[in-house]
């Protein structure tokens, strides 16, 4: 048995969700892959967010119990540019984060990914993020939740954004804040679709990261001590179980050699054709577990 834990993000099924898939269907699809964790979008799967009804809460706990899935990560957003003319104040941003931490805890989650507003094309977070988080570290500690912003393309590992988060961990000494790695940073071949968007030349020009920012997987080892969660981003796995964009063999090798033993949460972001995500997630779960087993057997360098 390997040491990694496997989960699936309901984000994988966006567009299907609410049209050809209910929340219970999502639990069924995830549990049937053999995964044991479920990741959700807070303002997405939680009906009535940010104040779900007691009927919805009963349904949630019933599903968690019936399908034996552990709530893993709760995705949240801080709408920094709250209107066209005004940004959230520190107090407002911190209050949004506190509200989401409490809701995530209530639903049984152990990780919360906040998405902060950014100020640049290199995705530098709005400097207020430190105050949002610092004001909530005690609350996160009480609730047993780790706040984990994601390192997501086009931001690579060796970058001031990543370093800024690491500096914060070092300065505060907190165990309630860590890095989430989105494996899209390792993408080394171009995408053909980005979610529901077919990628044209215009999009490639504005969003060069769609061609892959090709972070060397070995760099994972440099920051692994700060990594608390991995979103296993992918877009297309073919009938031979080959991923057409993410080089999983060296990625899995680096993850295993780092000693990371947390969640790998499938996050499909390929073509949004009805029902396509369901089997794509199944393929990725098989692929990742196969590679972990090969590593454990000493046949994956």
């Amino acid at each position, binding site marked *: 048995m390997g040491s990694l834990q496997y989960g699936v993000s309901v984000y994988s099924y966006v567009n299907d969700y609410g049209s050809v898939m209910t929340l219970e269907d999502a639990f069924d699809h995830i549990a049937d892959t053999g995964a044991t964790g479920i990741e959700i979008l807070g303002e997405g799967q939680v009906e009535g967010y940010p104040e779900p009804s007691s009927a919805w809460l009963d349904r949630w706990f019933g599903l968690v119990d019936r399908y034996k899935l552990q709530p893993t990560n709760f995705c949240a957003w801080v709408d*920094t540019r709250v209107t066209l003319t005004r940004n959230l104040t520190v107090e407002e941003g911190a209050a949004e984060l506190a509200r989401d931490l409490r809701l995530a805890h209530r639903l049984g989650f152990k990780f919360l990914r906040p998405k902060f507003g950014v100020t640049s094309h290199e995705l530098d977070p709005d400097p207020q993020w430190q105050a949002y988080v610092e004001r909530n570290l005690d609350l996160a500690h009480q609730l047993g939740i780790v706040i984990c912003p994601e390192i997501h393309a086009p931001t690579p590992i060796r970058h001031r954004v990543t370093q800024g988060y690491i500096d914060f961990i070092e300065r505060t000494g907190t165990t309630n804040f860590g890095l989430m790695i989105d494996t899209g940073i390792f993408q080394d071949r171009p995408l053909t679709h980005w979610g529901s968007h077919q990628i044209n030349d215009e999009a490639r020009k504005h969003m060069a990261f769609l061609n892959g920012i090709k972070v060397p997987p070995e760099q994972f080892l440099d920051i692994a001590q700060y990594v608390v969660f991995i979103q296993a981003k992918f877009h297309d796995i073919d009938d031979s179980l080959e991923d057409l964009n993410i080089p999983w063999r060296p990625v899995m090798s680096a993850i295993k050699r780092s000693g990371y033993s947390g969640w790998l949460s499938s996050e499909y972001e390929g073509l949004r054709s009805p029902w396509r995500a369901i089997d794509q997630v199944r393929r990725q779960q098989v692929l990742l577990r196969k590679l972990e087993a090969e590593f454990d057997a000493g046949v994956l360098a």
Partner: protein
Amino acid sequence: MLEHQLIQSTGFRNIGPVGARTGFAVRVRIPNYHGTRLSQLDGFTVTVDGEVFPFEQNRLGIRDEVYTLAELREETTARWGLLEWGEILVDKPGGLVPGVHHVEVLARIRYSYFPPDVHVFPMHEARMATICVA
């Protein structure tokens, strides 16, 4: 449940009194992968059979409320859930002729986590849709 695509079949209809229609409505699911506070939406441009109805003039109806663009931009409390539909309300005296039309919607969503100069993200979809009642 909703239809998979952004523009829904049902809800594409004329509005206003029969015989004196004031415009039409286009029902859409949320043009985003997660629920959204309304101030993060910056309007919807609708094009029907090539005729453009700019986002500045269209309104959004959701649940029992109707928002102009100015109201939408300042609505920081009310939200649009992932499983709810909204409707874009478009002024067009006389409404649309019953039958099949080419309908395009360009939804403008604001993402704080996109760089400021490109943070209004255009989400575009088009389809054939049918007006049933004059």
